[in-house]
């Protein structure tokens, strides 16, 4: 048997502890609820930012060393920082080619380069490809290089498309999307026309369309831009 506690002479038994309590000072009445709210918000934020351990999480693509690169100063003809803008040196990048090799943009200096951002799922891109193929056939002997930068697709899908459409120019895959981001390619297709010294001469967003005959190619906006960078 326990030691009997003293019998209270006064005071009621609290039969309803769940009723509203009196003001208990700013710490307990204000700060504590705020801390609880903050803890709940923090927990929700954590779940949102990190995910729950039992939820299968996908990680963003590992660039594997590919992506935008710093342009060597001796390859920058403008003296200004590279930027995807007319009159500025084209931002450099290193990407994987379809055959497993690599392509660095600045290695192509001396040639006129058309960097085309595209994807097989993009219908305007698909409609544009035959025109790029025709333009490449027409101007490659004059020093044109087309670099088709595919956005984040798998190699097999791209290779099938490249083979079917007869794309003879280099096709590289921007797995992380960082190069497209660097070039601010907010829509595709986007074509960046770079002259022989590595300077951006024009940028065009949208597909070049028209018939594929050589005569049509030479009269097209695409040809005018190519001829500008070939000069």
């Amino acid at each position: 048997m326990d030691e009997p506690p003293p019998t209270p002479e006064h005071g009621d038994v609290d039969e309803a502890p769940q009723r509203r309590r009196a003001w208990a000072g700013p710490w307990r009445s204000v700060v504590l609820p705020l801390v609880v709210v903050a803890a709940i918000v923090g927990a929700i934020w954590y779940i949102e930012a990190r995910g729950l351990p039992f939820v299968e999480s996908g990680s963003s693509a590992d660039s594997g060393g590919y992506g935008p690169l710093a342009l060597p100063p001796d390859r920058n003809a403008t003296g200004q920082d590279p930027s995807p803008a007319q009159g500025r040196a084209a931002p450099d990048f290193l990407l994987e080619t379809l055959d497993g090799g690599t392509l660095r943009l600045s290695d192509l200096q001396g040639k006129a380069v058309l960097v085309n951002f595209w994807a097989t799922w993009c219908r305007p891109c698909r409609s544009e490809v035959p025109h790029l193929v025709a333009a490449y056939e027409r101007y490659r002997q004059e020093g044109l290089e087309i670099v088709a930068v595919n956005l984040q697709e798998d190699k097999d899908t791209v290779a099938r498309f490249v083979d079917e459409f007869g794309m003879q120019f280099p096709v590289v895959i921007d797995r992380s999307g960082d190069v497209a981001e660097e070039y601010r390619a907010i829509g595709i297709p986007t074509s960046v026309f770079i002259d022989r010294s590595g300077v951006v001469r024009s940028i065009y967003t949208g597909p070049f369309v028209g018939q594929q005959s050589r005569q049509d190619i030479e009269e097209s906006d695409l040809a005018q831009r190519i001829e500008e960078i070939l000069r």
Partner: protein
Amino acid sequence: MAKAQTARRWAQTARELDPLRAVWRLFTSVRWALILLAFLALAGLLGVLLPQIPGTVRGDGAAVADWLDVQRGKFGVFTDPFYRLGFFDVFHARWFAAGLGLLVVSVTVCTANRFFPIWRTIRHPRRRVPETYFQRAHHRVEFATPADPLALEGVLRRRRYRVERFQEGETTYLFADRYSWAQLGTFVSHLALILFIGGALVSKFTGFSEDMFVGEGTTAPVFAVSNPNQMQVRVVDTVARFDPQGQPLDYRSELAIYRGGEEVKHCTTTVNGPCAYGGYRFHQAAYFGFGAELQVRDLRSGNAIYNEVLALTDFMPAPHVIIRDGAGGTLMDATLVLTDFVETAYGTTVTIPGTDRTMWIGVRPDGSSGRLDLLFFEPGQDPDAVRLLLPEGQRAGAGGLGFEFVSLQRLPASFEPDFPLPPGEATDSTQGQVLLEMSNVVYGVEETSSGKAVAVSTQSGPPTLSVVGIGPVVLNLEPGQAASVGDYEYTFLGQREFAGIKVKRDRSDNLIWVATGLLLMGLGITFYVPRRRVWAKITPERTYLAGMAGHLANLRKEMGKLGAEAGSPDAAQEEERDGSP
């Protein structure tokens, strides 16, 4: 004295005017929480009863204006005020989010305010009560002390009470407590409510939803152009199953999900069983069976210049016609693919089998009703040449032949404005567009991929694609079949189906599940765990019980039972009395 009273009144007034306390009083009020709940329930009702701006329209000023114009027919002058008040977008309105936020604060403050007193009563219960409590308690009984004064303690222990006994002279005091932790049940329910609201806010501010319409064998991106988390979804195969009446039973698709250039998931999605990857769910939301894959190749280079899976979302009329000879023998029984356009009529030139007669058969809208009638026109000046107009379901004779317009069917079709034409060729009959019509479409019975041609067939055989507008000739291509026009080769690669895929990410799902579990647990504890607290004073003559329980418990009756079980001769009377004194 008067001065002191005045000072106290001023202090009291100052306390009441303290804005911090005023806000605190508001948020600790259960009435205020109920008002908020009622407000949100009303808002939810409004959001369900009134049409809400579709997600595809939200944020596009012009599209919203068009949508409002449609609503004006129903709501008249109230349309604009309703829009400004957010009644057409309740669940995205700021006032709705503010209401949810206030409710979170209110529930949290209420909970924090009441937690410590309740915790104290659980951890440090009052084991002795004033003598007067046995005369004033809400739940109390008294009865003759049983022959064995300790019998009551045994009864309490058998009923899972934790019992403490104290002795003072001849009087024994008991303190019995059962399931005191159940008082925390309301906090569990409150936490569930907060998580529900948190889930709604997570869903509102961070949820992602995208509808994709992807043809078999094709890929579509989940996000806009370059996104570090970009994923592509390839529909490898999509299938619909139908019952014998043509009602859909099930849609399912085999998907390949790619990220960073690698296939990261290969799975099957159904309407109720989505694929999941990276916190995203890929639901089968729709199915469309009328698609065609068409390739165009430039014969000079050998390269493909066009390869598309096209959704044939339009329909073209296709009349089912029977032509009989004079003796009633059937010469032709076919559903015609109409390829010519003459003013308001669609038709095609047909050579009647077994004869050398050729006529133009087509449909033309009736001037008054708009109904499509079947027109038979045989060229030439012969007085017996057929000139006939037949409504659907009727038959007539002309030129020695019998004609019957059995029914008008519809063929999946599409007008393609950017279709590659061979250099030098131009479309004429379709205003610069190429018309694609597919007959013998596989659809509507069993599994669409089974290859059984039904419903909109023109005759038995595989799906056939008619390409109209590439020069003067109509190309009728079966799967795998190619035809050359000029330097281009056109190949129908086959019928393709489309899957409507809804990609969703909503981490609130997890919160909602947790909240649901907590709510059920909280309610279960509150309503089904019989928490009790009883004090007993046992004198040699009389036993007094007083206690506390939840609102729904009839503790007085229960205490009477305790006494009866302990052997009290008159406790049964208390047991039979219902309610509190």
